[in-house]
């Protein structure tokens, strides 16, 4: 009976749903954004270093050195994570073009062009005679003027996650135009006498011209504030993602897919990651500006407090297999699964125990992360731990990752440890039942032999 239900659900529900996430535009977003993750993680660490003084004694030499150079230390962050959409757009354009068998590099460049056309450069004039005269009298004004650049300046505000959704939209537009011109033959064709390499260079002019004219017309000539409009539309979606019901829904869906052995986090992440990045970057920006940090449920919250040891908070199960298993199989599994589990890799257990399609272990596999998520959400909203502000590498052991992600907050490490203990407690009765069953099977097999 159980087998029939699961087979039905796998064939009719989880696999078709998972395949939806393989739609080429969603895949392009996923691959484009994933390509920027190393950049986000490494530059996050610059932020962690710059703000180490917050958790160090003020009279240490290193504290004072870091404080004095904070702005400078943060500059690499400003040109990486702070403007991550600039990078993601290239990846999205590249990936989408490749999925149509078009030239990836051209797709990436077209997408980048389309995105930058939505960012209006400002021209800052040099101070006039009257301003210079005033500055001669006011040291404050002179100081300010010395910091103001002149000439063309690109505002950076929308190059980061704030521009993410526009970035996605215009990348799609650019690559679709590219594809349309290639397919429909709507391009500048040269007479056959013209060498083919020259002819190709003219052909690629058409999509570029269309993208440039259309996007520039909308954003620059007509002057529609596309970023303002889209951020208004997306705002409710972003704040909904931050709410407890969404957190629980996201966790449940991820666990649901994993219960069938499908990488649930990768599927849920395809859709939610752009929103998570907006939440995280708002936090980071406020943190760096020493303003109030308010968003709760960016991806690091899940990474460090919910999916400890891998999806399903299986760290508890790994520890149990390693130290409490009586069956030979359980012991062998525990020995091999515990080390990867410390680094949040749990496929050995998901497929080895197995948890997949195993009614006994699926129950805690779904309950444990839901409970962790609820606790972490309230702990954050009540200020018991700092809000997540950094993206630390997901293969760090839980408490260390939590400490870094929350901006060097030791309370986050404590919470992570408490949640690990909770995970052990939740898995324990189910583990015991399952291990006993394994043991019984082994003894029966021995007796039979």
């Amino acid at each position, binding site marked *: 009976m159980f087998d029939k239900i699961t087979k039905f659900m796998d064939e009719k529900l989880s696999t078709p749903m998972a395949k939806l996430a393989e739609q080429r535009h969603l895949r392009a977003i996923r691959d484009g954004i994933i390509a920027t993750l190393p950049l986000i993680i490494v530059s996050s660490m610059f932020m962690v270093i710059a703000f180490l003084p917050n958790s160090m004694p003020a009279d240490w030499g290193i504290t004072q050195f870091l404080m004095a150079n904070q702005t400078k230390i943060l500059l690499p962050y400003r040109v990486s994570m702070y403007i991550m959409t600039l990078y993601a757009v290239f990846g999205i354009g590249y990936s989408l073009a490749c999925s149509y068998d078009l030239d990836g590099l051209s797709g990436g460049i077209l997408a980048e062009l389309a995105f930058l056309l939505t960012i209006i450069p400002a021209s800052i004039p040099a101070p006039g005679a009257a301003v210079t005269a005033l500055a001669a009298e006011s040291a404050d004004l002179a100081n300010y003027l010395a910091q103001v650049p002149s000439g063309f300046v690109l505002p950076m505000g929308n190059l980061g996650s704030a521009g993410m959704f526009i970035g996605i939209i215009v990348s799609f537009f650019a690559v679709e135009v590219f594809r349309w011109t290639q397919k429909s033959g709507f391009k500048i064709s040269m007479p056959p006498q013209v060498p083919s390499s020259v002819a190709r260079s003219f052909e690629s002019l058409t999509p570029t011209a269309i993208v440039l004219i259309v996007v520039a017309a909308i954003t620059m000539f007509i002057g529609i504030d596309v970023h303002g409009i889209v951020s208004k539309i997306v705002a409710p979606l972003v704040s909904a993602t931050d709410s407890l019901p969404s957190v629980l829904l996201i966790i449940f869906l991820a666990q649901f897919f994993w219960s069938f052995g499908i990488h649930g986090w990768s599927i849920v992440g395809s859709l939610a990651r752009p929103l998570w990045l907006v939440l995280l970057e708002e936090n980071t920006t406020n943190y760096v500006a020493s303003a109030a940090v308010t968003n709760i449920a960016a991806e690091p919250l899940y990474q460090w407090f919910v999916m400890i040891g891998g999806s399903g908070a299986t760290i508890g199960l790994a520890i149990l297999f390693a130290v409490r298993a009586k069956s030979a199989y359980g012991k062998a599994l525990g020995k*091999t699964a515990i080390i*990867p589990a410390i680094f949040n890799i749990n496929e050995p257990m998901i497929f080895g125990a197995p948890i997949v399609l195993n009614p006994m272990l699926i129950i805690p596999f779904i309950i444990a992360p839901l409970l962790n998520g609820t606790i972490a959400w309230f702990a954050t909203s009540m200020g018991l731990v700092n809000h997540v502000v950094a993206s630390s590498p997901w293969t760090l052991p839980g408490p260390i990752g939590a400490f870094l992600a929350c901006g060097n907050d030791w309370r986050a490490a404590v919470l992570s440890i408490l949640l690990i203990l909770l995970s052990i407690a939740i898995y324990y009765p189910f583990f015991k039942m399952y291990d006993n069953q394994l043991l019984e099977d082994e003894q029966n097999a021995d007796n039979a032999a």
Partner: protein
Amino acid sequence: MKVLLVCSQGMSSAIAAKALQEAAAKQGLDVTVTECSTQAFAEEIKNGYAIGMVAPQIRHRFDTLKAQADAAGIPCVLIQPQGYTPLGGPKLLAQIKEVLGEIK
């Protein structure tokens, strides 16, 4: 013989890769196993592999990956869940033999 394992980010497949390598060594077979992420697969599979093997948790991407392997003329199979564990090396090896016949 070279085998390419692909999973979401090329992390968990490293564990299965090690298991496969050990199982092959036990049978005295010369098998080199490499692992990679989904994004890297299309390019990597062109580098002289005998077979591509897809991790079970990304089976919803199997069709895409299979098409990429087909384009390179390399057979590509979906790993059975039971084979994708630190103890599953012999099962992976058996699955390879099913597709390629006996391994020299």
